[in-house]
């Protein structure tokens, strides 16, 4: 039953919905520019497949699984399946209509799934990814979203702070990506052939759209057009810039590099955006600054380790989102001090432990279930194209198209 819509809050969440939507095309560009020319369309294809699969499952059962009445704190029941009469459901406490909340959350589910294209890059079958991501969204994303954000979700009850999805989105997808990478195996020629990024301006343009959208992602998570939405945006932007600056310094002092690269700067921005996500509305600007300063010290070495390792988690969702997300979640426990949250610096050390608990649950569940799922699909419908097709490139072999004439 509709009680009282606050059109201002509703307007901001409608806007934020659109902003989160554009993140997925932005991500497609970010990822697409980092890979070889012969696979760029296939990368766009994976991202749009994620949008398609998630939107449809969200309508069918996903929203209800994530935000329905809690079954033991683990998952929602199917009372909202099919979204019938959703426009009659009552609005959030901040006066945002249910319809708006449903589609705002749908966009989160979409971009999360799209990030998981990382370990599938340049090698996966289109149809198999479509199947994989539908199931993954259903059995991995929906429950974790429920744990953290739904009334009665067990991590929510445990007091886990996750302003905009550090745990639900980033930790989750990062560890899922690692699991997929283990199962799917590395690309042909990995560490032998040069796998040069084919279009770095496209990476930067994608980053621009991601940054833009992220303001809605984090700012919209206030679910209101209030001072905390503004604070979240200040913090988001500040952490992104600070982490980018640190990354520049790290590359500059790194003996193997010596020069700040555009891809590096972009990765720094991304690390900052990821890390501030759980904290955006809970910390003072100086807290955001600290998070920006610290996150690269976790992400940078893991990224370098991954590159040297045999793990072809091709677009580093694990390093950037997984490790960045863990760092952000923990640091939220450290720096949270406003908007009803109390972290270490505000006197409550237990929040750090709670955050760690949240991270362990999400990472463990995501990693484990995804590992099994990917393994089963590998054995049944196969995940990869044939070696020959991979060599020719997925654009031609999967989509029968050439990206650029």
């Amino acid at each position, binding site marked *: 039953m509709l009680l009282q819509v606050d059109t201002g809050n509703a307007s901001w969440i409608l806007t934020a919905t659109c902003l989160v939507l554009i993140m997925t095309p932005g991500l497609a560009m970010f990822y697409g520019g980092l890979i070889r020319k012969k696979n760029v369309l296939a990368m766009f294809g994976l991202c749009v497949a994620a949008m398609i699969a998630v939107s449809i499952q969200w309508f069918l059962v996903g929203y209800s699984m994530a935000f329905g009445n809690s079954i033991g704190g683990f998952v929602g029941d199917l009372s909202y399946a099919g979204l019938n009469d959703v426009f009659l459901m009552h609005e959030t406490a901040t006066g945002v209509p249910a319809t708006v909340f449903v589609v705002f959350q749908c966009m989160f589910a979409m971009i999360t799934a799209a990030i998981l294209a990382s370990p599938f890059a340049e090698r996966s079958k289109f149809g198999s990814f479509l199947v994989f991501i539908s199931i993954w969204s259903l059995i991995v994303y929906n429950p974790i979203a429920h744990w953290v954000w739904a009334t009665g979700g067990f991590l929510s009850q445990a007091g886990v702070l996750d302003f905009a999805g550090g745990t639900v989105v980033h930790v989750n997808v990062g560890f899922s990506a690692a699991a997929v990478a283990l199962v799917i195996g590395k690309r042909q020629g990995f560490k032998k052939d*040069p796998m040069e*990024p084919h279009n770095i301006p496209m990476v930067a343009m994608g980053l621009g759209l991601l940054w833009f959208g992220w303001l809605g992602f984090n700012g919209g998570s206030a679910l209101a057009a209030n001072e905390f939405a503004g604070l979240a945006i200040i913090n988001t932007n500040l952490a992104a810039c600070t982490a980018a600056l640190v990354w520049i310094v790290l590359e500059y002092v790194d003996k193997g590099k010596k020069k700040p690269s555009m*891809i590096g700067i972009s990765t720094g921005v991304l690390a900052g955006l990821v890390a501030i996500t759980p904290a955006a509305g809970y910390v003072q600007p100086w807290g955001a600054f600290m998070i920006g300063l610290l996150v690269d010290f976790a992400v940078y070495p893991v*990224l370098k380790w991954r590159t040297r390792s045999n793990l072809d988690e091709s677009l*580093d969702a694990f390093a950037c989102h997984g490790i960045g997300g863990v760092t952000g979640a923990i640091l939220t426990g450290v720096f949270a001090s406003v908007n009803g949250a109390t972290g270490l610096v505000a006197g409550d050390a237990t929040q750090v432990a709670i955050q760690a608990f949240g991270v362990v649950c999400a990472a463990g569940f995501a990693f484990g279930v995804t590992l099994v799922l990917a393994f089963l699909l590998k054995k049944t419908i196969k995940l990869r194209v044939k070696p020959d097709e991979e060599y020719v490139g997925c654009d031609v072999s999967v989509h029968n198209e050439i990206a650029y004439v």
Partner: protein
Amino acid sequence: MKLIIVIIRPERLHDVKVAATEAGAKGMTVIEVKGRGDQKGIKLQSRGGSYEVEFIQKVKIEMAVNDEVVPAVIEAVVRSARTERGPGDGKIFVLPIEEVVRIRTGQKNCDCL
């Protein structure tokens, strides 16, 4: 007539053009190529580390010239394309041409080079 094929560093194109033209090579055709020789690949950065580009950007110039200007053109190219950066300056190959036709007029082996 000879076809002089020249492979140079891209940044020398303008100077080589000027020098070769002065030396008597009026027409020329330019192609962006990638090459490999004594010069090792260059290391560029990728996300987590660096990767080696096996083939390096070069520019290839093809000039059909009359026999008598060949030495002058070669000398001009060597002079204008040389740098002090070690291997990678490129090569010149001279090939025989049996026949030349200017499409516009249909003339053969004319003074049209």
